[in-house]
């Protein structure tokens, strides 16, 4: 189909999405990648962030992606995420609590607290909140 990309998002536990999209914005490890049809084949690591895609009818959707890989072909995007959740699935209260907890740990580190882990947790929570804001 001209002008459309096949977007597939899978996690180890399930296939999350199979959708024809006009374009997608993927949170790669080195920053966001905007992908349109006829993109050159690309392989990249994913970071933690929000995947935004525009469906055939122009509607935009958001989902959280945490780690993994993305493979881009001329007419498809395959996202192999370690974890991914669509915006409707995200528990905002839980993400907010996680963010507060992580920030608390970063600002007032108790002995034995792993700062790197807290930073990661904060990043994950922020990505979830950002996606969930677009429910």
């Amino acid at each position: 189909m001209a002008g459309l990309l096949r977007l597939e998002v899978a996690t180890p536990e399930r296939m999350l999405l199979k959708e024809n999209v006009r374009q997608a914005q993927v949170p790669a490890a080195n920053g966001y990648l905007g992908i349109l049809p006829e993109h050159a084949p690309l392989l990249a690591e994913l970071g933690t962030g929000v995947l935004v895609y525009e469906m055939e009818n122009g509607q935009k959707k958001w989902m959280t992606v945490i780690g993994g890989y993305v493979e881009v072909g001329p007419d498809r995007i395959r996202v192999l995420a370690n974890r991914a959740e669509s915006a409707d699935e995200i528990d905002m209260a839980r993400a907010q609590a996680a963010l507060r907890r992580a920030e608390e740990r970063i600002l007032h580190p108790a002995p034995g607290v792993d700062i790197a882990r807290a930073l990661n947790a904060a990043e994950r929570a922020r990505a979830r909140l950002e996606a969930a804001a677009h429910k």
Partner: protein
Amino acid sequence: MPSLIDIRRRIRSVKNTQQITRAMKMVASARLRRAQERVINARPYARMANELLQDVVAAAGPELVEKLPLLAVRPERRVQLVLITADRGLAGAFNSNLIKAAQQFLAERAGQEIELELVGRKGRDFFVKRPVRISGETTGISQSAGQNEAEQIGHKLIERFTAGEADAVYLLYNEFKSVLSQRVTVKRILPVEMPAAGAGREYIFEQPPMRMLEKLLPEFIVLQVLEAFLESAAAEQAARMTAMDAATSNAGEVINKLTLYMNRVRQASITREIIEVVSGASALE
């Protein structure tokens, strides 16, 4: 000869057991459906991850890939065995087959130093009392295990392998073949056996292929652990369902036999009473 009341009591007791086994069978078949779904849902990712791995291997160049630490084949002196059993019993030979296979594994490698990583209560209960080396245990997850649990155990295995605490890592679990058959499977996950390089399409790599591989391989191992968990969960429910189905029909047989026996006993006592009446009457003549 047991009295009628005794037999009736036994029939009632068998019927109660049968009701329980029938209910357990129904629960198992409902859970089996869910577990099977999880196995099927996990398949697309596994397939795609395999393809991805092949592409990356092709790009990285097979000579370089062979030097990765997770591929290092060492003589197997210290071996790690991950035994995945169920948390609950009443599943036919599900757990005992696994435990037997584990003991056989230990016996076959008597010269090697084997450490067990136990997942599932049944395997733990068995080996905890025996003189074997145990590197760790995880219980209570046999039906709910997902990516988090697989990561935890997978990373531990990788750490032990890279630290030289284990020269090889094997998974021992029940593979879900069909509802009627589960197969005990031994699978080596470390050192990693590299899939052959793929067709090698011309990709732009955001990260150097070798660096990607270094991150991808651990995830590949976690994926295999997750697959084993999911397979085992489905196999457990299938085994329980078959076992409970057999138990239900066995109980039915026992009930039939007892009913027959009860009728015969009742008939005998009626006959005896008639004889008594008749002989009493004839004595008066």
